């Protein structure tokens, strides 16, 4: 099980600031979003617009071995400024 940090509307929809998710190897952005959607279907529409961050860096198509992953996060559309 991996801990995935949640923020903003995503954290509100789930009622938690982080969740535990089962993920396949290698870890990819698509795998994190698919596991989140399966576990918390109410996040589905927001998830479509989320990015994934591994170790506090946005990822796109990269693949990660479990040993490379220290911190996972789902990033809803940002709106600072």
């Amino acid at each position, binding site marked *: 099980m991996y801990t995935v*940090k949640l*923020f*903003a*509307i995503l954290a509100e929809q789930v009622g938690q600031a982080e969740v535990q998710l089962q993920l396949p190897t290698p870890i990819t952005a698509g795998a994190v979003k698919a596991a989140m959607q399966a576990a918390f279907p109410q996040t589905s529409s*927001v998830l479509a*617009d989320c990015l994934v*961050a591994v170790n*506090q*860096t*946005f990822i796109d198509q990269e693949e990660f071995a479990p040993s490379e992953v220290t911190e996972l*996060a789902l*990033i*809803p*559309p*940002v*709106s*600072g*400024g």
Partner: protein
Amino acid sequence: MHYVAIAAQPLDVQALYEKLKAPQFGGIVTFVGTVRQWTADVETHAIEYTAYTEMALKELTKLATTIEAQGANVVIVHRVGHLALTDEAVFVGVAAAHRGDAFKWCEYLINAVKQQVPIWKKEFDTDKIRWGGLE
């Protein structure tokens, strides 16, 4: 040297401006974003900002160092917490030798902050609550 921060307390515009000053940089451009009352016909009372703080600091540092490498001082501070009308949400400042660069880099930085730094706003409007970036 750049200064970046995610701040839980009100921004001290004067103190942030002072960090930018240097004898080699004669042009200082700052952008301050404040909580605005009206967006078209939507009236806003307050905004709550949250951040993925560690990652936001990393992103701000990347942005600041990229610009400073071209010859500038950079300060970027974003507020988190509950903000009222006219409260400062973000301060972006660039000091450079020439004003054209300072304007260009300051505008680039605030646009980049809005596009890629993990900070979110929850807007308390008269009609309902809105999450920024979603509608």
